Structure formats: structure tokens, C-alpha cells
């Protein structure tokens, strides 16, 4: 029942998406109002339909319909109920449907929120978002259908998934499912994919508005305002997804780090980079009417990277080009990216004249130039990342030999670029629009510079002795001080108007949330920069096999191996759990840790670290091996990750700042709508 319901509503959702897109293409939206309304209703209908379809899958999983291939692959009878729900995005077919569901949710939100305000753009927003949605629904229907059932051939006994019963077969019902991939049975993995996908689909909205602006020729300020808001929403979720993904890797993958420049990570990072570039350069367009073409390009590239990110992670192209060629999903994605990108570029060239700059750059020492440099650097990082991610594919195509582009490449190429970005983040907000002078800049910067020098001495005394680390800490400290100085200046200016410190601080942020929210984000980045420099440059590790009672020392700490226990769990995994004690230099006990190693019945291992976490550093212990029979010896790997908690703390500040900057301003909305209405009324009266 649920199966038929889900399949039917999926098909109907596909039909309404196609219908909405075709209607917009076929009519003249300015004259045929009723048809536009119809297209809107069809596009909004996709949301309840896909919701129904997704619910059907969850019902199938919860009820244990293992004859459905997806259910068998993503769950089992021992899977807890909450993981049965999240199993919706635990596998390929389900996650594609989940993508579509979020996409239709976003589209409906746009329809409800922006319908009146951006009336003339909306038909084409429907067109672009429905084409994208139809593409993903097509994949869900015809290539990766989550409702496929298993059929056993009566003569050969082969079991194959198919939507409809093939000839000479009978339904095959496995006794139990394979269960969700153990690595995904983690709180981080429950929240991380939805956030990442929300970020991805959130960035489809700005693209829809950009294309709508190009088609209608209404390339004035209207679309860019709307677009910036939606981009900020997508960007917020993408940032959250990236941070949560890092935390998940740190907690579950057991390699002592949080970011490995893995292709899957890169796929999510690239749209974030171009989106960040856009969020900065859009300010130049709003303030000075410049860079209109460039902003269009940034949005188009971001959209292409979003689709490509999904493609890279979903088509299997990364593991092997040959696997990619065999499945139908890869070439389809490839074609879709090529077509949408080319079409967008043609549109852009067509409207090139309307996107002329209204003003010109006045000075090399100006906010505009600083933002341009910011864009150059972000695009540089994005390109290097793209190149490193795709190169193994090129290599395999050209020479039939795979190569690995590992972290050393990214650290060497992106490391310096990112450092310059952070430095620029400290200077740019001090540079005035249009034109600034070194004198003015010097006056604003000397206090932060002096404070930076003082803290550098402190860092040196605290043990940061290498030039690279001093440079890293120095940049981060300088940016922190300049950003704080912006707050101080603002607050002092307001205090001169008679407000006390706290009122001044609150008013400052409340009156210009975008700017001061932005600075909070910058402070978050500063904290993260400290964490990254500390944990990357001063990470220590050691590994040794110990007998109970033996110790292993690392960086002022000593770890004593106490005991090891092995036991099975209900869900079939075999757990090996060690008890260790962490001691400081004087021999005082700091605490006990329980690093463990779980071996799942599928043969997949999972290494869960025991971590003693303080603001100063994480003492991160992994149980990497043990002697199986006597069970009285074990191998441990210890990482000492200094300042790593600043990465998470900085991430939190970052998200708070984004919320401050992005939270919808009720008054502003009302005023805007009132303004639009009154303009309309006047126009009606005049005519």
C-alpha cells in the first residue's frame, strides 16, 4: 500500500514539476495571469506529493518491508526507530528523494514569501527551480528508484531489484535487512546530511532569481536583495553542515582530525567558497552598482558546483571512472550540468549590456578593491580545490592510472591563500568605500598592530617558536583585534551620543545587524583560525603496544593502560573497550578514558576515541589493535590536538553571527510591502 502510494505521488510530483516548467515556457507570463497562477500551484503541489512519497519510504522502513531493495539496504530489524527515520537519507536512492523533498520545500517557501514582492520574476523562478526539481525527480523515478522491489528468477535463482515484476520471477523477501552503514549511526550523521542538503538546495534559489532577472531583463536592485537573503539562508545551512561534518569525522572516523580534504568534503566546500565570495561582492553591487556581471557569474558557478557536488558524491565517479560510465546517473548529471551552465552563460552574454557598471573603481586602496581581492582569493581556493578533486578523474581517463591528491597538496596550495584571506578579513573592514588613505588606515590600525605584537611575544613565550606558527597566530590575533576595534569605535561613537556601554553595544548590533553580524562571523573565523593553526601545526602523535600497567607519554601527559574488555552488543557488533588513565607530569590522575573499537557483523570496523577535552588541548586516545587470545596487550595511538576546541567554539560563534545577520527583519518586510503596495496604488490611480 505504502509502496504504491509513494510511487504514485512521486510520479505525480514529477508530472507537476514538468507541468509548471512547461506552462511558464509556453505562455506569456505578463498577459496570462491565470496560467502563471496555475504554474505556481503546480510547483507548490510538489511539496505535499514528495512529502507523501518520503513518508511512504519511512513507513516501509519502519514496518520492515525488506522486499523493497532500499529498505533492505538501509535498515534492519535491530535498527533503532530514530535511525529508521534517518535511513531515508542513509542510502543513494533515499538521499536523492530527500534532496528533492528539501528542494520542493524551499521552492514553496520562496513562493509564499516572495510571490507578491518579486511578482515579475516569479514565473521564471518557477521555471528554473522546477527544471532542477524535475531533473532530480527523474533520477528518483527512472534511475535510482527507492521503491524497487527484489525479484527472484524462478529458474536461475538470481535476485534483482526492479520496479515491476519481471517475467518468470517471484517476489523475494529477505528475512532481514543489511542495516544502516555503521558509520552513519551517529548523531552527527543524523543532522549533518540534512544541513548540507539544505545548504545545497538553498543555493538553487539565488540561481533561480538570477536567471529570472536575466530572462526578464529586470537586472536592477530588486533581485539582488532577494537573492542575497536566500543565499545567506543556504550559506547558513551549508556552514552548519560543514562544521557538523567535521565534528562527525573527529568523533567517529578515528584519525585524530576533522578535515582531510576528502573529495566528498571538497564537494561541499566549493559552493561554500563561491557563495562566500558572492556574499561579499554583492555588497559592492548594492553600494556602488559595480560588478553586476561578476555577481551573476558567481551565482551560476555556485549552482553548477552544487549540482556537481551532488554528482561527485552520488555517481561513484570518484571511486572509478569506469563505474561512473556503467551507471546511468553519472552521464545524466554531467549532461544536466553542461546544459544548465551553457544556457546560463548564453543568457548572461545576451544581457551583458544591462549589467554595465554604474560607477568605476576609484582607488586601489578602497573597500571595493579589497572585496575584489577577497573574491580573487576565494575563487583561487575554490579552483585549486576543484582541480585537486577532479584531477584523479582526468588522470584515470588519460593514462588509466588513478592517482591520489591528498592533504599535502591542499595544505601547500590552499594554506597560504586561506591565510591571506584571513588577513584581508582584518584589513578590509577598516578601508573606506571609494577611497582611503594609508594615513587613515594607519590611524585605525596602529592599536591592533601594537596589541598583536604584544600577543606575539606572549605566543612565543607560551611555546610557539616556529615562524609559520607565529605568522598564523599573528594573523589571527591581528584580525581579532581589528574586528574588536570596529565594535569599540562604534560603541564609543554611540556613547558620545549619551548611551551607556551596554545599550550602545546592543543598539549598534540591532541597528545594523548585517554589518555587526558579519563581524561576529569574522570573530568566529578568528577563533577557528587559532584552532586550525594550533591543531595543525602543533599536533603530536605517538603509538605503542602496551601491557596492562604500562604507560605511554606524550607532550606532558602520560597514559596508563589499565584493562581491556571484549563483549558483544545486541545489534551484533563485537566491542573491544579499553580503560586507560590519563596522568599529568606530576603523576596526578586527570581522568579515565575508554577508547573502543567496534566490529560490526558486516565486517566494518569503527574506532571511537576516548577524548579528554579542555580548551587548551584534546588528549585523544585510539585503540588501534590488541592481542586477540590473551587479551592482555593492546596498541594505542594518542593524538595531542592543541586548541582544537576553538574550532568548534569558533563554529558556534560563526553560526550565531550568521543568524544575527540573516534573521528576517519583520519591520523591514512590512515597510517594503507597504511601499510596494502604495506605489502600485499610485500607478493604478494615475492610469
Amino acid at each position, binding site marked *: 500500500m505504502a509502496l504504491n502510494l509513494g510511487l504514485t505521488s512521486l510520479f505525480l510530483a514529477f508530472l507537476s514539476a514538468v507541468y509548471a516548467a512547461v506552462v511558464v515556457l509556453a505562455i506569456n507570463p505578463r498577459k496570462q495571469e491565470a496560467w502563471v497562477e496555475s504554474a505556481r500551484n503546480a510547483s507548490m503541489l510538489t511539496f505535499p506529493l514528495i512529502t507523501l512519497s518520503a513518508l511512504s519510504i519511512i513507513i516501509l522502513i519502519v514496518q520492515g518491508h525488506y522486499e523493497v531493495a532500499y529498505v533492505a539496504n538501509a535498515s534492519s530489524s535491530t535498527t533503532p526507530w530514530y535511525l529508521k527515520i534517518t535511513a531515508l537519507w542513509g542510502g543513494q536512492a533515499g538521499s536523492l528523494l530527500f534532496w528533492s523533498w528539501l528542494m520542493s520545500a524551499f521552492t514553496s517557501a520562496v513562493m509564499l514569501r516572495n510571490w507578491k514582492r518579486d511578482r515579475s520574476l516569479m514565473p521564471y523562478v518557477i521555471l528554473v527551480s522546477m527544471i532542477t526539481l524535475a531533473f532530480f525527480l527523474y533520477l528518483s523515478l527512472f534511475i535510482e528508484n527507492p521503491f524497487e522491489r527484489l525479484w527472484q528468477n524462478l529458474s536461475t535463482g538470481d535476485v534483482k531489484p526492479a520496479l515491476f515484476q519481471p517475467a518468470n520471477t517471484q517476489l523475494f523477501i529477505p528475512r532481514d535487512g543489511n542495516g544502516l552503514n555503521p558509520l552513519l549511526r551517529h548523531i552527527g550523521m543524523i543532522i549533518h546530511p540534512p544541513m548540507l542538503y539544505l545548504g545545497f538546495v538553498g543555493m538553487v534559489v539565488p540561481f533561480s532569481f538570477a536567471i529570472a532577472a536575466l530572462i526578464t531583463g529586470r537586472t536592477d536592485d530588486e533581485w539582488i536583495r532577494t537573492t542575497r537573503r536566500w543565499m545567506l539562508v543556504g550559506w547558513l545551512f551549508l556552514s552548519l553542515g560543514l562544521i557538523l561534518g567535521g565534528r562527525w569525522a573527529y568523533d567517529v572516523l578515528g584519525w585524530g582530525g576533522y578535515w582531510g580534504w576528502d573529495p566528498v568534503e571538497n564537494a561541499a566546500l566549493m559552493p561554500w567558497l563561491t557563495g562566500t565570495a558572492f556574499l561579499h561582492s554583492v555588497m559592492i553591487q548594492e553600494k556602488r552598482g559595480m560588478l553586476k556581471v561578476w555577481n551573476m557569474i558567481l551565482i551560476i558557478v555556485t549552482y553548477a558546483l552544487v549540482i556537481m557536488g551532488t554528482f561527485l558524491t552520488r555517481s561513484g565517479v570518484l571511486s572509478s571512472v569506469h563505474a561512473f560510465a556503467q551507471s546511468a546517473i553519472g552521464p545524466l548529471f554531467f549532461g544536466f550540468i553542461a546544459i544548465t551552465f551553457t544556457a546560463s552563460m548564453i543568457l548572461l552574454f545576451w544581457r551583458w549590456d544591462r549589467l554595465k557598471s554604474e560607477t568605476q573603481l576609484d582607488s586601489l586602496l578602497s573597500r571595493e578593491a579589497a572585496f575584489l581581492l577577497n573574491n580573487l582569493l576565494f575563487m583561487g581556493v575554490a579552483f585549486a580545490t576543484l582541480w585537486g578533486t577532479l584531477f*584523479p578523474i582526468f588522470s584515470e581517463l588519460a593514462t588509466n592510472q588513478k592517482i591520489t591528491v591528498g*592533504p599535502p597538496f591542499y595544505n601547500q596550495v590552499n594554506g597560504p591563500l586561506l591565510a591571506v584571506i584571513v588577513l584581508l578579513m582584518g584589513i578590509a573592514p577598516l578601508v573606506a568605500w571609494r577611497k582611503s588613505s594609508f594615513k587613515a588606515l594607519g590611524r585605525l590600525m596602529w592599536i591592533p598592530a601594537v596589541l598583536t605584537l604584544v600577543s606575539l611575544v606572549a605566543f612565543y613565550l607560551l611555546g610557539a617558536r616556529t615562524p609559520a606558527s607565529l605568522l598564523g597566530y599573528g594573523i589571527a590575533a591581528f584580525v581579532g583585534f581589528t574586528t574588536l576595534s570596529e565594535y569599540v569605535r562604534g560603541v564609543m561613537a554611540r556613547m558620545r551620543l549619551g548611551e551607556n556601554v551596554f545599550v550602545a553595544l546592543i543598539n549598534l548590533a540591532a541597528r545594523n545587524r548585517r554589518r555587526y553580524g558579519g563581524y561576529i562571523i569574522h570573530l568566529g573565523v578568528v577563533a577557528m583560525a587559532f584552532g586550525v593553526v594550533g591543531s595543525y601545526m602543533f599536533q603530536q602523535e605517538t603509538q605503542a603496544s602496551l601491557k596492562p600497567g604500562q604507560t605511554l607519554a606524550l607532550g606532558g601527559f602520560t597514559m596508563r593502560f589499565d584493562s581491556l574488555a571484549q563483549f558483544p552488543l545486541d545489534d551484533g557488533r563485537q566491542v573491544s573497550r579499553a580503560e586507560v588513565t590519563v596522568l599529568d607530569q606530576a603523576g596526578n590522575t586527570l581522568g579515565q578514558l575508554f577508547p573502543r573499537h567496534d566490529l560490526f557483523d558486516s565486517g566494518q570496523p569503527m574506532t571511537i576515541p576516548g577524548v579528554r577535552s579542555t580548551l587548551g588541548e584534546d588528549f585523544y586516545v585510539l585503540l588501534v589493535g590488541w592481542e586477540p587470545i590473551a587479551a592482555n596487550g593492546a596498541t594505542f595511538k594518542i593524538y595531542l590536538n592543541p586548541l582544537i576546541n576553538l574550532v568548534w567554539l569558533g563554529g558556534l560563534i560563526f553560526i550565531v553571527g550568521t543568524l544575527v545577520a540573516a534573521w528576517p527583519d519583520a519591520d523591514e518586510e512590512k515597510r517594503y510591502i507597504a511601499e510596494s503596495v502604495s506605489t502600485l496604488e499610485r500607478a493604478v490611480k494615475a492610469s
Partner: protein
Amino acid sequence: MNPQLLITIYKIASWIIEQLIQRRAESSPQAKAKIIQQRKTSAVWSLVGTLMFLIGALAASMFMCVDFVFAQGGTPPPITDDQVNAVAKQLFCPICENIPLDVCPTQACAQWRDTIREKLAQGWSEDKIKDYFVQQYGERVLAKPRTTGLSLYVWVIPPAVILIAALFFAWYVRNARMKTAAASVATSSEEVDEDDYAKRLEKELSKRR
């Protein structure tokens, strides 16, 4: 063919050509001299840029070729796990997806780490062990792509593209400033003054209200 499309293509082409030859409407000798001066400056800039790029590329490739050679000699026999990991860190698991060998938890990788241990005990150098792995499993085991053959492009292309983009950026900024200067809208430098900062801030804040 759609005439609009043809016009668009024509526009693109003419824009590119215009940018390339910097055709300007001015005809006065002063303007011509200025254009020549401009061209000279851009030629010099490109030359300097190219030279810097070459020097940078050379330095980078030298830096990359000088890999650390593991200290040998003394009394080697007990190979510690840390020594093994130091080598394994530079290698990727030949069968798993994108997992460095020093942290890969599979049984196969444990065996590969044992291989490294054996080779180290036999007195093999780090490079020799890496070469051995490449020979056995292909270049995909190297975490850091080589700087020879096709892999060289991994290293060369990003800096080259970023450099070209930087040159374009410099050209754009210079060009834009020329135009502004030509328009001679000499705006007085808006220096931020401590005293009128309060005023400016208030103005900006109230504008956003």
C-alpha cells in the same frame, strides 16, 4: 539560426577583440602617447608577472623535490610504531577510498604497515619504501602527487590560473582607475576622521532603519 543569438555572439567577439587591442576613440597625440604608455606599462607588468611566476614555479619545484631523507645509521633494529606511521602517513590505503594508510583500520592496511616495518628493519629508506608501494599498487598510494609526468599538472595549473586571474584583476583595477581619472571626477579623499565618525555612523545607521 536565431538572429538574437548571432548578435550576442558578435557582441562577445567584438568585446574580446576590443579588450585585446584596446581600441580607443581618442585621436589626439596626447591620448595616443598615453595609450602607448599604457601598453608599455602592461607589457612590463606581464613580463614581470611571467618572470615572477617562473621563479616561483622553479622555487616551488625545487622545494618539492628536496624531500626529507630519513636519518639512517646507528642501531636500527627496534622499529617503533611512530617510525612506521611516519612512512604510512605519506601513503594512502591502496584499496579503501581516500584513507591514509597510518589511520586505516582494516586488516589489509595493518598488514601493509607490517610490510613497512619489515622494510624499515631491513634498512630501507623512506623513499625506497614509497617506491616499492608505487611499484606494487600504482601511484594512487602516494598522498602527495609526484612532480613528474602527468601529475606535474596537479601542481602547476592552480598557481598558473590564480596568477592569470591576479593579472586580470590588476588589469581591471588599472583600467578602471584610468577611466575614473579620465573622467576627472576628483573626489576629495574621504578620510575617516575620528570626530565625524560618530556623525557618519549615525547617518549610516539611520539610513538602514
